[in-house]
């Protein structure tokens, strides 16, 4: 392809057309079935109302973006630190892993009052909840990744005088990267939704609050407009995750089949 812009366009063409087709199907279903806009609004209406209500929508997007980004950064750190701790101590692994699995089973409704009690309505509890929801896939990925390290490599490093830490840094960590990035994709997908749910626990502003209000004011069109914004945010994060993967693993492109 001559033009890199054109090529990029070509690469996202299938996605764009798939989404367009879905939207067209939806639009015509609404038009033909005569379903009430209070039940299922058409995409055109969602768009129009979203544009009309954009100032308030935008105002509610920013806190969610903040919570998502900061929470996700915390999550990255927590997942990594925990994975290291667990990798270094088999006893801790057996002690912590079940506790962490259990922690993931707590529905937000059960912990939300406590989070509010302890951290108030500010940004902090949202950051914590986003981190809480998204760290687990990355943790599992790290742990699986460490396990996938080539034993010969660890043996070699051992003979070089590498201690447990150096072996970890030189062999286990890079070996786990492909797994980590699989976990990262899953986590980024959930980060925005997590922030939205976190806002349900109590917030003054945010996409979650916007959705809740729109619902309680019987405005499914605005609910879905906010959902649309959250989808766009998620796609951006997902794209960033893929970009980060490309940058962090420059050698990976040589592993593609040679024929």
């Amino acid at each position: 392809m001559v033009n890199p812009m054109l090529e990029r366009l070509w690469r996202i063409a299938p996605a764009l057309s798939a989404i367009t087709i879905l939207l067209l199907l939806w639009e015509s279903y609404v038009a033909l079935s005569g379903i009430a806009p209070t039940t299922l609004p058409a995409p055109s209406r969602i768009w129009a109302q979203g544009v009309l209500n954009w100032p308030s929508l935008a105002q509610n997007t920013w806190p969610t973006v903040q919570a998502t980004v900061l929470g996700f950064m915390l999550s990255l750190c927590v997942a990594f630190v925990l994975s290291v701790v667990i990798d270094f101590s088999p006893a801790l692994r057996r002690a912590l892993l079940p506790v962490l699995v259990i922690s993931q089973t707590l529905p937000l409704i059960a912990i939300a009052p406590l989070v509010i009690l302890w951290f108030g309505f500010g940004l902090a509890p949202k950051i914590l909840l986003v981190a809480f929801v998204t760290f687990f896939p990355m943790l599992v990925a790290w742990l699986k990744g460490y396990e996938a390290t080539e034993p010969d490599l660890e043996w070699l490093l051992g003979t070089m005088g590498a201690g447990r830490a150096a072996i970890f840094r030189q062999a286990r960590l890079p070996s786990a990267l492909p797994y980590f990035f699989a976990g990262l994709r899953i986590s980024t997908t959930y980060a925005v939704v997590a922030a939205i749910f976190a806002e349900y626990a109590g917030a003054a502003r945010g996409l979650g609050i916007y959705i809740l209000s729109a619902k309680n004011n019987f405005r499914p069109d605005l609910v879905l407009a906010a959902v649309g914004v959250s989808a766009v945010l998620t796609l951006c994060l997902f794209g960033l995750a893929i970009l980060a993967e490309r940058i962090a693993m420059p050698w990976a492109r040589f592993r593609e089949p040679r024929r």
Partner: protein
Amino acid sequence: EPVRIALDWTPNTNHVGLYVAQELGYFDEAGLEVEILPYTDAAVGTLIANRVADFGVVDALQLYSQHSAGVDIIAVYAVVQTETGRIVLNADRQDIARPADLDGLVYAGFGSAWEDRLISTLIRNDGGDGTFETVTLGTSAYEALANGSVDFTMEVVTWEGVKAELEGTEQRRFRYADYGVPDQHTNFIASSTAFLEAEPETARAFLEALRRGYAFAVENEEEAARLLVAANPTALPDDSLARASLAALNEGHYLASETGAIGTIDPEKFAAMGEFLFTSGMLLDVNAEPLAERPDFSAYFTNAYLPEDAQP
């Protein structure tokens, strides 16, 4: 074909007539098979308009809003005869003596624009500015109030209020009507014109049996509470709460008005709240534009399917 009815909340004492009628066989006697649908997050108006349910328990705001927006939903029965909602705050808040003192404080809200209008009206009518901060909390509002994270919230006095009293929590409340907000039937049973026109007799039979259930609850508080709890072992794990709540409903003349009206919708009350919502720009049409003209609120409800003796 059973008659299906949707709920506005998990089964509670507001629904007592429904369960009593079911348990005591009033519906059977009327030749009806009634299915009480599980509570869902979906709007009751949506369920009715899409024929998932034939009837539904709805709160007033939903009824006004959905009907204005063109949803085929119409109130046919008033569950409570007078407002059960209250502003509630901790009793130890010396700084709050009256609604005007709420200015600048933090309100734990549920996410509807109506709350904002209601509270600001309350404050302004009491001489304040009507400015306060809202944090949307939904289900966690009462914990937040209890531990002082927020200054005040809104409650259903016959449920949250009764619970607080049982627990011995010291609280104070403001009644909306005391500060110029019109009184209302907080909850209705609603149906659709499509259903009512297609099966008027079924509707009549259903409402009559339902009303017998509520009348029974007014007369036989203890037995009604027992039946309600027995029908909902999961939803009502505490029969003490159900008992006390039903007592409060009767004592406050919520289920039966002081004049003895049960289920009857008061047209003046209905129009007054409609007027309040209309003038505050809360009612939107099908295109999400505020209603340009004052609607005919008598089209939002009908008493025509109630038994003769309940007609106003």
